[in-house]
């Protein structure tokens, strides 16, 4: 058997190597990679991004609607903005799992020994994930509209709300990226992250108005960043957001990015994979 039958001494393309890779090219390549990965696993992707938001919304609106607001129809008006967040936040965990997968499977070692702008390996997939978030949000929103949700803020309010949630998801994904770099196995990332997420999601004002809660719980729930962001989204989508609500929401996103983006990049660059 002759494996290398077509090679004689040199490869044509070696004679004209590109000078170097720009940071932009590196980022777009990693975006391309994430997109190809998605394309290769389309069925799982559709389940996650399209079907699961629909199911979540149906379960919560029909299960709790009667008890909390008297009817599904009335509840959906309160529930939908929060459900958008409830839909997207668990999806951000993938940023950490895929980063950890790269590190543990050894692709990381090749990337680390190549001369491109290294943070691109983290940033690229996070940007592509934005597409996933958008699809999930649109899927949840469409289901909401079918169930009778009416955004009082109109198209503009809705678009702003969606954009804000995507920005929030991007900022949260840095937290899980940090966990992804630290974890020894991808399974640990999803386990730990879900443990972290669910208390925050449920001890919030997504499902129930915090005004109905005992005082001390109300304080905790209102301080939960998820609640603050939900307030911002409700404000935007109903067209009644105050400046302070909007700036509180944006401040949380910026805070997450300022803290966790540098930590992730630093840990990634100083990580060494001892086999």
């Amino acid at each position, binding site marked *: 058997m002759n494996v*290398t039958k077509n090679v004689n001494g040199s*490869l044509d393309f070696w004679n004209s190597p590109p000078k170097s890779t720009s940071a932009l090219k590196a980022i777009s390549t990693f975006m391309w990679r994430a997109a190809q990965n998605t394309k290769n696993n389309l069925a799982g992707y559709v389940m996650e991004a399209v079907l699961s938001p629909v199911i979540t919304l149906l379960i919560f609106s029909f299960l709790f609607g009667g008890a909390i607001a008297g009817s599904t129809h009335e509840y959906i008006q309160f529930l939908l903005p929060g459900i958008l967040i409830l839909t997207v936040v668990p999806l951000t965990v993938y940023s950490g799992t895929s980063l950890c997968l790269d590190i543990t499977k050894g*692709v990381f070692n090749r990337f680390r020994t190549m001369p491109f702008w290294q943070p691109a390996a983290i940033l690229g997939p996070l940007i592509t994930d934005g597409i996933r978030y958008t699809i999930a949000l649109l899927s949840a929103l469409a289901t909401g509209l079918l169930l009778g949700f009416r955004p009082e803020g109109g198209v503009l309010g809705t678009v702003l709300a969606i954009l804000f949630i995507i920005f929030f998801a991007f900022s949260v994904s840095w937290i899980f990226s940090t966990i992804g770099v630290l974890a020894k196995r991808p399974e640990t990332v999803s386990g730990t992250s879900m443990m972290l997420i669910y208390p925050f999601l449920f001890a919030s004002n997504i499902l129930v108005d915090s005004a109905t809660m005992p005082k001390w719980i109300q304080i905790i729930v209102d301080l939960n960043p998820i609640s603050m962001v939900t307030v911002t989204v409700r404000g935007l989508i109903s067209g009644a957001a105050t400046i302070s609500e909007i700036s509180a929401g944006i401040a949380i996103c910026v805070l997450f990015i300022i803290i966790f983006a540098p930590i992730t990049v630093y840990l990634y660059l100083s990580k060494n994979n*001892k086999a």
Partner: protein
Amino acid sequence: MNKGELHALLGPNGAGKTTIIHMLSTLLKPDEGTAFIGGMDVVKNAKDVRKRISLTGQFAALDEGLSGLQNLMLIAKLHGYSNKQARLIAHELIQSFDLLDAKNRMVVNYSGGMRRRLDIAASIVRQPDLIFLDEPTTGLDPQSRIQVWEVIRMLLKMNTTVLLTTQYLEEADQLADRITVIDKGAIIAEGTPNQLKTSIGKKTLSIRTRHCEYKRIRGILARQHALNVFQDEDPLVFRIPVTQSRLANDVIHTLLKNDISIEGFTLDEPSLDEVFLALTDATYGEAKK
């Protein structure tokens, strides 16, 4: 290391082979000491060093969720090639490494040997001055191993310098211009394969006879060739350390002439175990029997 040569780092598990590779390939900062590649410090000029090296690690550095072709395109694009060029390069490499039939299959479905070949292909998307191959054949079946060897010989034909680590003496022997033997992080021997083998000494000729004639064989060989004969656990098998293959030939002739019926024989290179015993333990010969 000299340009265009293959230098093998030989050592058992935990000897420090991978650590050396990781330090040289900028993945790991050395605690002390300096190393230079093409005159550049691997710590201070890490970025320049990265432009000239390529690492094929112990575990295939591939994205399992992508096809073989997509993996090579990814690397080509990261080197700065346009999409169109990247596709051409990926195709050419896929063909050269005999993976054409599997080019659109996801790597998760590749066999160990196919992964290795794809991994090495990914390492030469851009011509590296120096390529690190960290145990490229560990865990492969014999056929895949030979294919990987062929790929490595091709790299050498292309005038690439290769630093290879291996646990197998045979592999170093087949491929290397020079070998460094390390154990517990220290160099214990260095030289060309032949220098090393003669310093380690002996091959072992194992002979299986029809009848148990240990004493007679011992007598004949001691008289005619001044050789020692050791009996195996199996009373019909005898082991004779010889310095050259020719001597093994003579031994068999002598035995046949003396009407000893030989059922079979093998001539074995010293195993890595023996190499280490020989290098670390001067009383190796006596210790063996």
